[in-house]
């Protein structure tokens, strides 16, 4: 009995010592020098292994960064801080790309853009797109099987009741997987700061668009008109017959959204845009606000000669506020009243 206990201790202990010592020795003897910067870069990367950089994972990207083949901006997911940090590790200045999010450039739910035929094949947009240009009446419209939702590695997309994918901005990292997955290039990356985008890809003109979709862009050029968008943010592309946004220009063209006859422009902040109101006590009744207001019937004259803004119609464009000679117009945000600065 004693012998077997001693034997057990000796053999397992001996084995442990042998293997422990052996491994310790081997880890020295067979040590492979890895550039310490690889570890640092790897730590700074998001670690999601989404493959958006084109590498197999974050570790592989870190290796390529240290080898100098890639820069930090190859990772669309990393925050600008992380990119700056990686640039610092590498001792290089990295151009800071703006954070992007994906948007769905189609609003053609089945009630707005009907199907041409009943498709019963694979439930995949890529497959459906190959069968007679897809079942959608519009050749550029969303097929609604959610290849993009499947492709999203961050659970940032859901398929809506209306068969259109919705992007959850807070979760979207702008990795661009959905853009690749969509066979019709409907998903697009726009800067996170951009609130308004054109939700249509149809390059046809008025009648051809109207016949397939009630919310398709007809290329009417109204939004790009300098009277509608004085900042010049929107320009028409003559080939695609679609408005193009210059995201460098800081302006939310809410008036263009309002004027668009087909509601093809989408305003992500439409629900929480502040509205304006006129403090009745300060209003002198000159009516400058009514002259500049782009919304018909939003500002009206009261019987006592003063003016009132119908807040439910106000789109928050803010044109009236500087126009008022008596500074009677204030912003009213969703949180409550707030004096205009």
């Amino acid at each position, binding site marked *: 009995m004693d012998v077997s206990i001693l*034997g057990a201790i000796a053999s*397992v202990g001996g*084995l442990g010592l042998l293997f422990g010592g052996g*491994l310790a020795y081997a880890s020295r003897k067979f040590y492979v020098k890895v550039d310490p910067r690889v570890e640092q870069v790897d730590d700074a990367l998001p670690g999601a292994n989404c493959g958006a950089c084109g590498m197999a994972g974050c570790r592989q990207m870190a290796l390529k960064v240290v080898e100098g083949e890639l820069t930090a901006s190859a990772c669309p997911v990393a925050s600008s801080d992380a990119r700056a940090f990686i640039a610092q590790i590498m001792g290089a200045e990295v151009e800071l790309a703006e954070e992007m999010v994906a948007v769905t450039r189609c609003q053609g739910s089945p009630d707005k853009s009907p199907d041409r035929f009943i498709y019963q094949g694979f439930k995949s947009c890529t497959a459906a797109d190959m069968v007679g240009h897809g079942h959608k009446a519009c050749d550029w419209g969303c097929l609604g099987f959610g290849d993009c939702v499947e492709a999203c590695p961050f659970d940032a997309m859901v398929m809506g009741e209306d068969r259109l994918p919705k992007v959850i901005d807070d979760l979207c990292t702008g990795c661009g997987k959905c853009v690749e997955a969509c066979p019709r290039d409907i998903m697009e990356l726009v800067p996170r700061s951009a609130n308004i985008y054109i939700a249509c890809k149809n390059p046809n003109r008025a009648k051809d668009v109207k016949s397939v979709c009630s919310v398709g862009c007809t290329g009417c050029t109204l939004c790009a008109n300098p009277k509608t968008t004085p900042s010049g943010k929107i320009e028409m592309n003559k080939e695609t017959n679609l408005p193009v946004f210059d995201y460098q220009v800081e302006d939310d063209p809410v008036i263009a959204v309002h004027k668009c006859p087909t509601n093809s422009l989408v305003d992500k902040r439409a629900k929480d845009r502040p509205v304006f109101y006129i403090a009745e006590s300060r209003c002198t009744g000159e009516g400058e606000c009514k002259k500049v207001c782009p919304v018909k019937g939003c500002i009206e004259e009261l019987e006592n000669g003063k003016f009132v803004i119908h807040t439910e119609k106000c789109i928050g464009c803010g044109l009236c506020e500087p126009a008022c000679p008596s500074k009677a117009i204030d912003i009213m945000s969703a949180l409550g009243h707030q004096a205009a600065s």
Partner: protein
Amino acid sequence: MDLSNLLVIVVGSILINNFVLMRFLGICPYIGVSKKLSSAVGMGMAVIFVMTLASLASYLIYYYLLAPETNFWGVDLTFLRTIAFILVIASLVQFVEMVIQKLAPALYQALGIFLPLITTNCAVLGVAVLNIDEQYNLIESLVNAIAAGIGFTLALVLMAGIRERLELADIPKPLQGVPIAFLMAGLMAIAFLGFSGLSVG
């Protein structure tokens, strides 16, 4: 050395007593690494490699340290078999990983990610234990280990092929992903049950 005896071991380990589908060992990588054919092949190769080395090491440990008839002190230490084998396999895999990282970077690229996954794989421990239970000699142990690894690879590759096709199939939502994989595993196990009627030797 009786060649037909080795052939029986090979056919037995690959088909009749397939480690995954008949003995239900190594189910974790079977489900976990069977989503892509390429990684399934990589994993299978790594398992064959590790199983062979582990059989060799565990054979030596068992007969020269633990078994009372053949070890140096004549004491029965066979109750230490499990713990000693796990120790051997884990250190061995660690060691091998370091060596091939240094000496064969290409092989490390191919197998490297899978090696740490295998250290605690019960199929590897299983083959070491079965070699002892079946009282195989060294050559038979090694042949059995390689055959068991091939059997594991076969099951893994078949499964990966099926699962790549399942990706395109219209599967009811509650069954998508791993649940349907488990159902497939069950069907494959039933199919492999057919081999138990095979008479060899």
